[in-house]
């Protein structure tokens, strides 16, 4: 996940990613392969190096997923709020009636 965070700032070659995370290059390459297989990053060869960059689509989809859950829950809380407002309005009316 730290690799993903680093790539959020822009495309980088493997060597630089390894350097910044203080990991060995083969280790980083292995992680990058997994991310690449999952479609999260894409490699682009430039001269002798492979530059890695994030693929925006999966992340946009993740956002959509979180948003959907968010809406589900916000919808329930809206209903809860509305219910409690009604309940209290009824209670207030009753109290008023009791008062002379």
């Amino acid at each position: 996940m730290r690799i993903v965070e680093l790539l959020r700032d822009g495309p980088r070659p493997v060597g630089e990613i390894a350097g910044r995370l203080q990991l060995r290059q083969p280790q980083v390459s292995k992680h990058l392969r997994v991310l690449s297989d999952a479609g999260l990053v894409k490699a682009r060869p430039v001269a002798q190096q492979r530059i890695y960059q994030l693929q925006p689509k999966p992340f946009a989809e993740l956002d959509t997923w979180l948003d959907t859950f968010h809406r589900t829950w916000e919808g329930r809380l809206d209903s809860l709020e509305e219910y409690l407002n009604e309940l209290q309005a009824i209670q207030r009316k009753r109290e008023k009636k009791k008062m002379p």
Partner: protein
Amino acid sequence: MKVDLVVTRIIDATVELVWKAWTDPEQVMRWWGPKDYTSPLCKIDLREGGKYLFCMRAPQEQGGQDSYSGGAYKKIVPMKLLEFTQGLADKDGHKIDPAQIGMPPDFPREIRTEVVFKAIRGDMTELTITEYDWPVGQMYVFSLAGLHQSIDKLAVVLAKR
């Protein structure tokens, strides 16, 4: 990778009222579900280890299907905390394997959920709901596009980061 999802809302009602709205089945049926949904059933065995079953029914125009969620209470501190597990269930409260209804293989069968009630300014309540350890793995990312259309079936309580 796993993430906790949190949602907070300040409600203009006392903690006592909000607590009752969460723990009295008759009251839960008055609000469980988003706008235009109804709740035809709710069972609550309010004790640690006790089970619950909530149901929401989609409006007719959206198919009118029932979605059940159920689980067990893990910790109950009156007016303060409700902790429970939640998962997909059938109408009898039996757990449903998420994979059977087309959810991705790493979709959790159970999510640990915490609802915290906090009195603020005397007569208002701050409600915080946290769902712990949602896996956000490869499978999620792959299946996201198709997933959100059926999300209403989930009957899980969720929020943004």
